[in-house]
């Protein structure tokens, strides 16, 4: 078999218990237990009876984030601006590049694309914490808060700081009727 079955914990004595070679950093090949290549490298040649594995560093735009026996590194994905993606972590030879959707959009696994964030109707505001690349969570405005706009970015505004806004609004327009609101 390609890889040996993991030893059952607490297994009884077995006649010739050789330590299993196959592990995160080792592999069995041509009768030897050889070292895999470390993250950031790929295996250009397997070990032989007389020589160890030969590892080469990944090229530009490539990575390998695990100990491996692969004959090539993996290619970094493209943070495609044409799909409204931007790079949030360029990645390196041991870490995969990370992309995220530009503001106002979130990654939709189903269409493999950046979908517009949900717009919260009046009476609702966006929930916290606002997570990048995640759809808006619309929360009904609790008592003492309100939202009169449909928006995918606005929170519910509390009445208090809005009272001043209302006043200033009134002031601006010159009528001096004061809105009495039951809090």
């Amino acid at each position: 078999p390609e890889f040996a079955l993991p030893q059952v914990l607490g297994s009884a004595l077995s006649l010739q218990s050789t330590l299993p070679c196959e592990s995160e950093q080792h592999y069995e090949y041509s009768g030897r237990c050889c070292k895999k290549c470390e993250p950031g490298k790929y295996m250009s040649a397997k070990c032989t009876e007389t020589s160890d594995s030969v590892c080469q560093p990944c090229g530009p735009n490539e990575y390998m984030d695990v100990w491996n026996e692969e004959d090539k590194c993996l290619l970094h994905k493209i943070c495609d601006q044409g799909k409204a993606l931007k790079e949030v972590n360029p990645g390196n030879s041991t870490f995969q590049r990370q992309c995220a959707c530009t503001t106002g959009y979130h990654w939709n696994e189903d269409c493999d694309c950046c979908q517009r964030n949900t717009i919260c109707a009046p009476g609702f505001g966006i929930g916290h914490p606002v997570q990048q690349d995640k759809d808006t969570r619309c929360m009904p405005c609790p008592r003492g808060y309100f939202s009169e706009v449909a928006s995918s970015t606005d929170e519910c505004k509390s009445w208090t700081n809005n009272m001043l806004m209302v006043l200033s609004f009134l002031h601006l327009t010159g009528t001096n009727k004061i809105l009495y609101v039951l809090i």
Partner: protein
Amino acid sequence: NIPTGTRKVNLTSWHHDKGQANLSNMTFSDGKLIVNQDGFYYLYANICFRHHETSGNLTKRGLQLMVYMTKTNLKIRRSEVLMKGGSTKYWSGNSEFHFYSVNIGGFLKLKTGDMISIQVSNPLLLDSSQEATYFGAFKVRDLD
């Protein structure tokens, strides 16, 4: 209504020995084709989507009808999309029948133990007749 944004789904229930289906020198288990011999393989898939008005209205938003062929490499515990294809579609209500097929294919290096599987969006719209929706692989030659 048929939800348009159903999650990308892994297709597992394939015939592998009935009708036109065939299997030799590869293993089929749990919807995955497992490679038994290193080599260069030609991989292909053909997926048909359909909707008839008798199945109810599609929601107004557009559909994205997609197929993905994925390779799972157990050694590095990694799944990678090998090939993808499909189209966004606007299947309006005034026509009684909608149909769309996508075909993907490519020549790729596979190693013993690699597992090939198919994912699609909108599985409820799949035309599952054997001439419409199928996938496969054949070995072309050994590795260099």
